[in-house]
């Protein structure tokens, strides 16, 4: 093909002759995507991550990673003359003086919330459909790891602002770190460069972790996750006869899927910018600067940390001691053991399930939640556990709104978080088996009707395959 060939052909030729990528491109463009909305949740997370990186880069151009104390002389009158860290002053500056700064900062914050929500929903989809089964355990494990890394990443971003609420969050995290048996104090001295609030290098370190190390880690995990997804191809629901464990039915990347995915990416970004512009989130200039000796009542963290606040609040008063040695300080249970159990469960679940079911087969067809009642029940039980602890973390709001005393609520939750999951699991199991029963009855009826129609047709009483005529 020489000059005069269409420009697309020439571009492809140029690229292929320099990179040898035409065979790869051809295969990629015809990669088949199963057509089901629930497969888009992971994509939303990916696009939210892209928005986070883009808005985050903008914010780094203004943020100052220093806890050096200065006196505020900016445009915001209520903070005039207050002592605060350079970090907090710079975020107030971004929010109130940099043009478009507040939009970018709020979009960044919203994107973090939605990024984590999308990951969690994606995890639910993968869990309840059994998509993590062989040969995709590794993809799943990378995904769970990304969730943990992203939680820490979001927590650091929240802490870097150094407003009153973020400082309270930071000292709580520090206390949970201190509570790690045997090594907590040493570890926190290492990370914070001494006891709280730590040395002058702590904030710059947290900043590097937030804007470089952790994003790099997430991007690496994300890359590996996507490579594994593509190399094993997507799973699919069995909705057509042609969908089998051996062959995948769906829309090719090009031209069908690409505009839709790109549309979803832009829609995600558009929604995030709408939220960032129109719905206020974390108005940090109202909270004021953080000092170790100040705190405020009624503070609630971002949603993805709510379960840990609940966990910390629910544990009754005790430190486990042997003589003068404190083996397990209290915050360990709610702040460390609780998430460790939840993530440990998520990590080991695929192997636990295989051990019980003895299922070593390859699976490309995913199941509906009802197809695996025990898995669904256990999953629902775990969610109920986390959600109930999360709700316990909101008891103070319930007290303010409805006047139910805080202490009585906590006592109720201390029981409910153990009973509730069992009940929820039971209901889930019963629902699954009931749905299965309905399907069996329906299936049997359809079969019987088909047989009857066929028999009637044979006897010449009516046309076959016309259920309306038979039913009414």
């Amino acid at each position, binding site marked *: 093909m020489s000059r005069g060939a269409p420009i697309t052909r020439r571009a492809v030729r140029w690229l292929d002759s320099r990179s040898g990528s035409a065979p790869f491109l051809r295969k990629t463009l015809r990669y088949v995507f199963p057509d089901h909305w629930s497969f888009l949740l992971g994509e939303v997370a990916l696009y939210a991550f892209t928005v986070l990186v883009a808005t985050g880069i903008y914010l780094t151009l203004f943020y100052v990673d220093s806890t050096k104390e200065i006196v505020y002389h900016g445009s915001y009158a209520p903070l005039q003359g207050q002592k605060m860290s350079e970090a907090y002053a710079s975020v107030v500056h971004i929010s109130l003086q940099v043009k478009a700064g507040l939009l970018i900062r709020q979009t960044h914050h919203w994107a973090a919330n939605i990024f984590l929500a999308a990951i969690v929903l994606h995890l639910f989809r993968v869990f309840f459909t059994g998509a993590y089964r062989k040969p995709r355990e590794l993809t799943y494990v990378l995904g769970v790891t990304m969730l943990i890394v992203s939680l820490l990443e979001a927590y650091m971003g929240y802490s870097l602002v150094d407003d009153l609420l973020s400082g309270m969050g930071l000292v709580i995290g520090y206390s949970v770190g201190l509570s790690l048996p045997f090594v907590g104090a040493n570890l926190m001295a290492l990370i914070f460069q001494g006891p709280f609030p730590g040395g002058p290098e702590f904030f710059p370190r947290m900043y590097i972790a937030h804007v470089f190390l952790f994003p790099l880690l997430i991007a690496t995990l994300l890359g590996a996750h996507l490579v594994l997804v593509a190399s094993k191809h997507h799973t699919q629901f069995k909705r057509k006869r042609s969908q089998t464990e051996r062959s995948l039915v769906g829309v090719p990347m090009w031209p069908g899927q690409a505009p839709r995915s790109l549309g979803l990416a*832009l829609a995600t970004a558009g929604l995030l910018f709408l939220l960032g512009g129109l719905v206020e989130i974390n108005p940090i200039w109202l909270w004021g600067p953080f000092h170790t000796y100040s705190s405020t009542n009624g503070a609630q963290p971002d949603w993805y940390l709510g379960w840990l606040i609940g966990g910390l609040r*629910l544990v009754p008063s005790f430190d486990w001691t042997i003589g003068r040695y404190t083996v397990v300080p209290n915050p360990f249970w709610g702040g460390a053991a609780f998430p460790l159990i939840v993530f440990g469960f998520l990590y080991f679940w695929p192997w636990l399930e295989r051990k019980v079911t003895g299922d070593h087969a390859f699976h490309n067809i995913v199941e509906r939640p009802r197809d695996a009642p025990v898995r669904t029940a256990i999953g629902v039980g775990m969610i109920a556990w986390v959600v109930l602890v999360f709700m316990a973390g909101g008891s103070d709001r319930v007290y303010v709104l409805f006047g139910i005393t805080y202490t009585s609520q906590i006592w109720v939750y201390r029981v409910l978080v153990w009973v509730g999951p069992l009940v929820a699991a039971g209901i889930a199991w019963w629902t699954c088996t009931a749905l299965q029963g309905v399907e069996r009855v329906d299936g049997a009826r359809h079969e019987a009707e088909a047989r009857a129609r066929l028999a009637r047709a044979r006897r010449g009483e009516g046309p076959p395959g016309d259920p309306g005529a038979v039913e009414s």
Partner: protein
Amino acid sequence: MSRFRDWLVSGALLVVGRRPRRPLDDARRLVPKAPPNLAAETLVLLLFGLTSLSAIGFVLVYALDPPAQTQLLGATLGLALLFLALALIVVGQKLVVTEELVEEYPAPEHPHEQALVGELIEESGDRLTRKGLFKLGLLGAGGTLGLALLAPVVSLGPVFRVREYLTSPWRKGRRLVDDKGKPYKASDIEADNFYSAFPEGITETQKEAIEAPVLLIRLPESALSLPPELQGYDAGGILAYSKICTHAGCAISMYRAPLFQPDEPKPALVCPCHYSTFDPTDGGSVVFGPAGRKLPMLPLTVDARGYLRANGDFDEAAGPSWWGVRIWKDTSS
């Protein structure tokens, strides 16, 4: 020059030209043929236009600095992205052919290659005579090298100096001052009120330490029931406790004086983070919530001129618990 003309002509053709007839015959096409959809095409063009309008709106809002700028910036940029998203979704659903392809899954395993890889690795170690020792040596070398490379991490912070957790700026005779550095007199402390205090003469940075802030309250002496070892810690009913919760390190900022909550008749100090609740009448014991240790108490005295002074250090280590937090009593004088 002619090259420039070529570009110009092809550019113009791209904009207004009609699709030239394809030389390929329909049977050989990769993407199946489908009739045009003029309505959808028009809609997409309209959405492209709306995207441009919103994007220009964003730049105008940015440049002109109107009131409610953040909201207008978010709305214009968000809408621009959403219009373009909608255009692409219409393209995906209505303008390009929606094919349904069947694709074979890749082979789940490659037994032949697996065998080859295994063989390669096994055969390459044939010349080794003491394989066990070799592996052990390699493990040792790798492990020690790994440790050596990790060692500089210790520079990050005083990982082995945990005594720093057990220091406190409070000394016998040190005056208590407020946030601005003004010393408290015993007469400044009123009942049913709540004061923050710091040791006199510390820097702003030292004020941020966990052990620095204390809270001051006044209770009728008859209401106190301090345990024997804390007898005399109060100064005529004025009590000083560490302001930092022993649970998770937040500042205790709520004092429930017996003014409200008829079901909770006793005064209490409450941390707003996880609602650990301490009883100030008996030396700071935990009455509710997760805290695992009592609130540290600072012994007080009043000097001849009426100023509040510390009469020693805390009875317990201040701040959240860690493995050595209860060694305090061995170390303090």
